[in-house]
C-alpha cells in the first residue's frame, strides 16, 4: 500500500506532459499557417508575372503573326520571342530585391514611384514552337505552343517560381488568336 503514495504528483506530471505536448503541436500548427500564407502570396506573385509574360507573348504574336511564321519557315531554331523578357525592358525590369522596397506604399505620398516595385521578379518566354499550320481553311492559321517562366523575389528565402504553357491558334494575316 505504501507504493501508492505520491500518485497525485505522478498524475499531475502526466497531465502536465500531455498539455505541453498539445501546446507544442498547437504552436507548430500556427507557425505552419503563417508559413503557408506567405508561400501562397509568393506563389501568387509569380503566377501573375507568368500571366503577364504570356499576355506579352500573345501581344507580340498578334502584332507580328506573319513575321513569326516566316521565322519558322526560314528554319529559325532559336526563340523568336526572346525579347519577351521583363529583364531587358527598363519599364518592366523589376530587378533584384532591395530592402528599400519594403517601404513601398501606395497610400503614402512619394513612396510608390512610377518606376518602382514593391518586390522583385521577372518573366520570360522560355520557348515557342510551331505546332502546325492549317492551310485548307479560309483563313490560314498557325498553331504555337508557348512556355513562359517567372520568378518573384521578396528577399532571401522568399522566392517563388512559376511556369505556364499555352497552346494557341493564330490567324497568320490578322493576328487573331
Amino acid at each position, binding site marked *: *500500500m*505504501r507504493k*501508492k*503514495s*505520491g*500518485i*497525485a*504528483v505522478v498524475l*499531475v*506530471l502526466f*497531465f*502536465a506532459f500531455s*498539455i*505541453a505536448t498539445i*501546446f507544442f503541436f*498547437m*504552436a507548430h500548427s*500556427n507557425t505552419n*499557417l*503563417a508559413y503557408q*500564407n506567405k508561400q501562397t*502570396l509568393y506563389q*501568387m*506573385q509569380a503566377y*501573375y*508575372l507568368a*500571366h*503577364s509574360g504570356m*499576355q*506579352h507573348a*500573345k*501581344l*507580340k504574336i*498578334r*502584332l*507580328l503573326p506573319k*513575321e513569326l511564321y*516566316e*521565322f519558322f519557315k*526560314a*528554319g*529559325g531554331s532559336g526563340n*523568336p520571342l526572346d*525579347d519577351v523578357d521583363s529583364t531587358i*525592358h*527598363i*519599364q*518592366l525590369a*523589376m530587378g533584384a530585391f532591395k530592402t528599400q522596397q519594403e517601404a*513601398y*506604399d*501606395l*497610400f503614402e505620398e512619394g513612396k*510608390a514611384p*512610377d518606376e518602382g*516595385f*514593391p*518586390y522583385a*521578379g521577372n518573366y520570360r518566354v522560355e520557348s515557342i514552337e510551331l505546332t502546325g499550320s492549317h492551310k485548307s481553311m479560309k483563313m490560314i492559321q498557325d498553331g504555337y505552343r508557348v512556355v513562359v517562366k517567372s520568378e518573384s523575389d521578396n528577399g532571401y528565402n522568399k522566392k517563388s517560381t512559376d511556369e505556364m504553357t499555352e497552346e494557341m491558334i493564330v490567324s497568320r494575316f490578322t493576328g487573331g*488568336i
Partner: protein
Amino acid sequence: MTKLLRKTGITFVEVCLAFLILGLVVLPVFQFLTGSVKETERFYTETIAISRAKFIMDSLMFQMPWQAIGAGNPCSFEDRKGVAGIKQFISRSVPQMFGEGCETSDPEVFKGDGLYTCRKGFKFRARVKVVDLDQDSSGAPIQFTMQLPGKPTQYFKIKDLVPKDSYGKFNLMKKIVVQVKWSNIKNLDPNEDTRANSVFLVGFKSDLEG
C-alpha cells in the same frame, strides 16, 4: 483498518505540490491560448487580404477591358467607348472589388481605391496604381524585335504597330500594382494604424483587344 485508510489517501503536501505543478503548467498554456486566438485572427485577416488582392488582380488582368483602365494612383475605371455592357460591368464590379469610397462625382467613373469591412469587423483598404508603359513615357520604351535567319534584326516600335489609344498614347502595356492594407485591430482604418500590414501584387496587362 483506520491506519490503512490513512495511508492510501492523498496528503496535504501532495495536493499543494500537485496544484503548484498544475499552476506552473496551466499559466503559460492560458497565455498561449490567448496569444493563439490573436494569432488566428492575424492569419485570418492576412488570408482575407491575400484573397481580396487576388480578386482585384484577377478582375483587372483577365476581365476588365483594356480601354476602361485609366492610369494613376489610384487608377480610374470608365468606359471610354460608350459600350453599355462595359459601363454596367464597371458599375457593378468596381464597388465589389474595392468596397466603400470608390465612387466619384461622375456616376460613370470609379477610382481604384476603397474600404472594405469583413464580417468580423476588420477593415481593409485596397488601392490600385496603374502606369502606362507607352511610347513616350520612357527614354527606352518597349519595342519588339524579330530576327529572321540570315537577315538583320528588325525593330518594331509601338507607334509603328498601333494607332494612339483613347487616352492619346501609343500604348500596349500597363503596369498594375495592387495593395491591400489592413489593421489587426477591429474597426480601425488601416490608414490610422501605424502597425498596419500590407500585401502587394504586380502584373503587366497587355492590350489584346485591339
